[in-house]
């Protein structure tokens, strides 16, 4: 084998020590070369380690690990351990409030479905759906940020970009008793800035923006008429 590859002398010079060769020959080394050890014998594992490993894994990794952590969570992060504090997208149709992005799962957290769009990136359906969303959001004839008229992955995205809030201001002002200037201030004040200046985008949590808005507006806007004509879906 070594003779065919162009460096026979070097191969011989660096051949393994004689002692090893004889040891390998005596153990019946393979025909493809001297100096090869033979494969150690094969045997199946016995049942005990296989079964006990599985039992131990289930007890320690399946039960103890999450159990201990759920206990720890109640001490180190009591306010966030249940997940009740995390805002989720909801179906907001009141035109006097800011709206969320459309949801392909109808904002149902227990739908259990992933929220994949039933169309690809170059499917005419994507184009038509986008136009339909633009219409539903009452934003024809203006430049619409894609964020507001596109579904999210989770279908529960509670956030929008600042531009997606700004573009809704004329409608909110029309249906509420707040001026566009006041709403602009409110939107600007509710922008969540990037952590440490670079982690994350600037975005707006629609739920908390709308809660502030509700507190400012008087109760009458909640029953504003004409809501259904403009509501998403």
């Amino acid at each position, binding site marked *: 084998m070594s003779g065919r590859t162009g460096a026979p002398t070097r191969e011989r010079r660096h051949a393994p020590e004689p002692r090893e060769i004889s040891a390998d020959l005596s153990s019946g080394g393979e025909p493809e070369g001297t100096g090869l050890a033979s494969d*150690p014998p094969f045997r199946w594992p016995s049942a005990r380690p296989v079964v006990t490993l599985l039992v131990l894994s289930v007890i320690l990794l399946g039960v103890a*690990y999450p159990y201990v952590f759920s206990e720890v969570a109640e001490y180190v*992060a009591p306010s966030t351990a249940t997940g009740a504090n*995390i805002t989720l997208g909801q179906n907001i149709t009141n035109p006097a409030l800011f709206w969320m992005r459309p949801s392909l799962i109808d904002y149902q957290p227990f739908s259990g479905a992933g929220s994949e769009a039933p169309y690809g990136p*170059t499917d005419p359906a994507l184009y038509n759906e986008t136009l339909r969303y633009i219409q539903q959001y009452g934003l024809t004839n203006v430049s619409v940020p894609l964020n507001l008229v596109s579904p999210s992955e989770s279908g529960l995205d509670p956030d929008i970009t600042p531009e997606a809030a700004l573009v809704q201001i004329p409608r909110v002002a029309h249906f509420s008793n707040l001026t566009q200037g006041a709403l602009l201030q409110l939107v600007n004040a509710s922008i969540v800035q990037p952590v440490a200046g670079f*982690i*994350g985008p600037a975005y707006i949590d629609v739920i908390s923006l709308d809660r502030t808005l509700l507190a400012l507006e008087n109760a009458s806007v909640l029953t504003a008429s004409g809501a259904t004509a403009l509501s998403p879906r």
Partner: protein
Amino acid sequence: MLPTSSVVDVLFTLGLGLLLARWLGIYMAKVYTDRPTALDAVADPVDRLVYRVLGVDPRRQMGWKEYAGALLVVNAVALVFVFVLLFEQGSLPLNSWHVPGMTWDLAFHTSSAFTTNTDYQHYAPETQASLLSSLLGLQVLMFLSAASGLVVLVAFVRGFLRKDGTVGNFWADLVRSLTRVLVPLSVVGALVLLLAGVPETLAQSTQHALLGGGFEFVPTGPVASWESIEMIGSNGGGYFAANAGAPLQNPSAFTNMVLIVMMMLLTFAPPFLFGRMVKRPNEAYPHIGAILIIFVTALLLLFFFEGSNSFLSGTGVTQTGGYFVGAESRFSLSESVLFQGVSVYGNVGATSMSLGSLTPGAQSVLLWGMFLQCAPGGVGTGFGTLLINALLAIFVGGLMVGRTPEYLGKKIGPAQVKWAIVQLLSHPLAILLPLAVAAASGLGKVAAGPGSHGFTVVMYEFVSESANNGSGMGPIADGTPFFNVVGGLIMLVGRFVPIIAMLAIGGALARQPAIPASPGTLKTSSATFTLYLVGFVIIVTGLLFLPILAMGPFSQGVAWP
């Protein structure tokens, strides 16, 4: 192209991930060569106790066949156990969502998916898996499959160190992988996620106030502890159907960054582990270099392709923040894309944006990562794949210049090349045969729709399963017996054929005496070799897969108006 803050963000995240991965690789080299580490005081007594319960002698060295046999039996038994658990979950406790038992084909697909580190989910976790199945079944498999990947790599690498034909003790490697690597990392990871606001509770639902008054029930659970091993073990099966896009699984851009770093830890650590284990730290650099050249190129392409979708230009929308369809607003587009790049190229398979909505260019880039499987690829097996590619590259290169092909003092002989070819061909075979069946029988079209997008979606599914990636491109009605059974088989082939090949190559190397380096030896720790390796990997992959890439996303792309 990207705003400055995003550039800082991406570089910071990648830098942090690489730094920690390097540290981890060096630490793991100590673990697998029995050198002292800081965790010994705690882990040693635990290990001894476990060995006693298991009834094994951790010092007895095994040949590759015995090692592979033990690994296959452990995985098979775990698979059967979880299959039964999923099949019977309807009549078992801890099921407050009243989830019925899975059908046999779905249970087969799901247990195969988690055994093979793929974690492809044909089921919706919220409605089709009970807490009992998730924790006692699937979460245990997430640990075991990650540990299996690690021990395979370690046994493979030991081939370069030994000449008596042994590759290590399977039980010792498995136990040490758990007690010294996976469990400590998962505990730290879960703690960080917990503090960053990810839920962790054994309750299965919580109440959220609705804006218009009233409440709605929202699914919750031990998400932080689950997600920690999901990411660290390159598993990628979400606690929720929307995976890392779900607000309860990934509530902020900060947790998104933490998850990216967690995914990078064990996928980028192996080159450093390898360099230290073979006692030539410089040998890490051609590998990490090759990985980074491919990976960073892929990221740049992803950022470029996701910047906007020109298909929508006539609708009057502005895409200043990027192409937002299927992405979440609390992450910048570069963060979503970085997550997706790391997840798919590291064969984790978690998603934080919906892949079916990605532009055709981005879809091609992700598919390419799963064709490669080695930049960096899943825990253990990803780097094993790269090593096999390196062996083949050296073999081919050695023949071209008339030198004895050898790597780190070991000749690359017929046995190594034979098994390397088995590994190389198992991937395209496991993808192309089922894809041909799905296309010819019309089953693919029924599930995913017509045209090149439907073809891309079915192809993505099989590629993801064979690569043990687990990310899914939708929409696809893949909960059918055909996709469950075929998918389960693809995952098992895509996992265990390469694993057997890696162990066999390790065993073949381990039977050879070391040849001292000579002037004729190819210098592998060089920039030349790094570039050669990149070229070799890209060309071989291109030859295998470009035709189906052309039929899928490429033809979607040229269909643009």
